[in-house]
C-alpha cells in the first residue's frame, strides 16, 4: 500500500490522553471521537489537517491508556497512517487489531521537518520525502501482523479460521 501526505510532527511520549482526552470517552462513535483527535497536543489539528495526512511521533507514541478510542479517533479523522520511532505496546496492538497502518522508522523521524510531504510504500518497506532522493527504511512487520492487516483486522482474522 502507498500512503502519501503531509506530516504533522509531534514529540516523544505522545500519550492517549493527548490523542483523545478522557472527557470524550463517554462515547465510542468514531465521528464524535474524530472531532477531538490530538486535541490536547494541538487544539487546531483537526481543523487544519487534510484527509490522507500523516501523524509523526517520536519514541513511545500512544503510551498510557488501553483506549482503542485513540487509534479510532486518528483513523476516523482521516489520517492515513502513523510513523513513529517506537510505539507503546497496547497502541501498537490496537492499531493492527483494528487496521490503522503504523510504521517505525527512527531515521525518518529524525530527518524530517513538520509540514513536509512523504510517501510511505508499505510493501517495499520504504519512505521517501518529497523533493529528496533519499529513502528511509521501515522496521519490518512480523508475518503474523501482516496477516492481520491482510485479513482486515483481528475479528475478521479469527472469523476466517
Amino acid at each position, binding site marked *: 500500500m502507498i500512503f502519501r501526505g503531509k506530516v504533522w510532527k509531534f514529540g516523544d511520549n505522545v500519550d492517549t490522553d493527548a490523542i483523545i482526552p478522557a472527557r470524550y470517552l463517554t462515547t465510542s462513535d468514531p465521528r464524535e471521537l474524530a472531532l477531538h483527535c490530538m486535541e*490536547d497536543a494541538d487544539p487546531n489539528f483537526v481543523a487544519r489537517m487534510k484527509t490522507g495526512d500523516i501523524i509523526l511521533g517520536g519514541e513511545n507514541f500512544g*503510551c498510557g491508556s*488501553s483506549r482503542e478510542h485513540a487509534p479510532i479517533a486518528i483513523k476516523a479523522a482521516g489520517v492515513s497512517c502513523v510513523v513513529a520511532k517506537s510505539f507503546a505496546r497496547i497502541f501498537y496492538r490496537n492499531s493492527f487489531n483494528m487496521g490503522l497502518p503504523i510504521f517505525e522508522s527512527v531515521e525518518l523521524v529524525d530527518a524530517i521537518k513538520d509540514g513536509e510531504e512523504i510517501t510511505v510504500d508499505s510493501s517495499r518497506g520504504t519512505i521517501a520525502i518529497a523533493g529528496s532522493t533519499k529513502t528511509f527504511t521501515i522496521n519490518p512487520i512480523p508475518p503474523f501482523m501482516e496477516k492481520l492487516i491482510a485479513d482486515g483486522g483481528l475479528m475478521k482474522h479469527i472469523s476466517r479460521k
Partner: protein
Amino acid sequence: MGNTITEKILTAHTKLKKISAGQLINARVDIALGNDVTAPIAINEFIKAGGKKVFNKNKIALVLDHFTPNKDINSAQQCKAVREFALKQKIIHFYEGGNVGIEHALLPEQGIVLPGDLVVGADSHTCTYGALGAFATGVGSTDLAAVMLTGELWFKVPESIKFVIYGKLQKWVSGKDLILHIIGRIGVDGALYKAMEFTGETIGKLPMADRLSMANMAIEAGAKNGIFAPDAITREYVKKRAKRDYKFYSSDADAVYSDIIEINAGVIEPQVAFPHLPSNVKPINKAGKIKIDQSLIGSCTNGRIEDLRIAAQILKKRKAAPTVRLIVIPATPAIYKQALKEGLIEVFMNADAIISPPSCGACLGGHMGILAEGERAVATTNRNFVGRMGHTKSEVYLASPAVAAASAVLGRIASPEEL
C-alpha cells in the same frame, strides 16, 4: 536454560512445551475484563463478528467503574449497553451500582483473579494482578471481543527485566514510592514491551497492598506486565478469597533476563512525580514549595484499606487547608465498609474531606474532582499527563497516600515529617 515466571505462565496456557521471548503465541485466557469505556466497543465488535454466546460466562468480568454513578446521558447509554449484554449473556462477574468498585482493586479482592492465571483486560492497568503472581496485561477492546468469542488471544512473549530490591524501607516509604523511583530511573519507555519482575529481600517482606500498587504502575514504564513470585504473603491474601484452584509459579535460577537492575530501597525517600510524566520523579525534600488546590486519595493504585489507614493516621485531629479540596475515594464497597468500621471515614470527614463513592472519578478527569486552568493537584493515582485530571493547563503531582494527606493539611506538597 531456564524460564522466567512470565514465560512459565504463558507456556501453561498453550499447547506448547516450551516457549521463549519474542515468540508469537496463541494462549488460553482465564479472565477477561472490560469496563464502561472499553466494553461497549468490544460488545459491538463481538456482535459484528456474528458472536452469539460468550466462550464462558464465568471468565468474563464487566465492571462499570469509570464514569459511574453515571456522569451524563452518554455514559448512562454506555452502561446500559453493557448491562444489557451482561444480563443476556448471564455474565457472572458483572458489577454495577452498589457492588461496583474500581476494577483493579475489586478483582483481586473478590478472588476473581488468582496466582498463575492469564488475565487480559481492556484497561491498561490490568497489569495490577501481577502482584498475585498472575500474568496480567492490558489489551484493547477488539482483543476483548476476540477473547469473548474464542477464549484465546495472541501474545508476543516478552523479555523480562529483573529488579532486585534490597534494604529496609524508611518511615512513610511505600510500594508507591518504590515504583515511582523505578520509573524515574528507567523512564516511561524503560521497560517497553517487557515484563518487570520484582524480586529481592525488600519485596519478600512487602505487603500485598504495596505489591498491587507497584504492579499497577508497570505500564507507566511501558511494560507488558509486572510480576511478583507468589509466596506466603500471597497465600495469606488469596486463601480466604479463592473459589477455584490456583497455581504458584516462580522463575528458574538460570532464567534469562534482558537486564538485571539492583535497587537499594533503604535510601529512598517518599517520591513525587512532577507534571507531565510519571517518570519526572523527585524525592520529597527536593520538591520545593508547591501550592496545591486539590488532594486526591484513591484510585486503583492507592485506594485500598491500607492506603486509607495511612492517610487517616496523618489526618487524625487535623484539617485540610481551607484552600485545598481533599477527596477520598475508597476503591471498593468492602473497603468503604471497613473504613467506616474502623472510624476512618469519620476522621476524613472531620478533616473536611469529601468522600466519593467507589469510582475512577477524577483519576482520569472523568467527573467529581476536575481541575480548572492553572490548578494543581497532588494525587495518589498513576498518571499525570497533560489534561489527565482536567484543563490542559492544570497539573498533577503523583505521590503516596502519606504525602497526599500531609500535603492536604499544609496546602502544599509536603512530607508527613513536616507536620
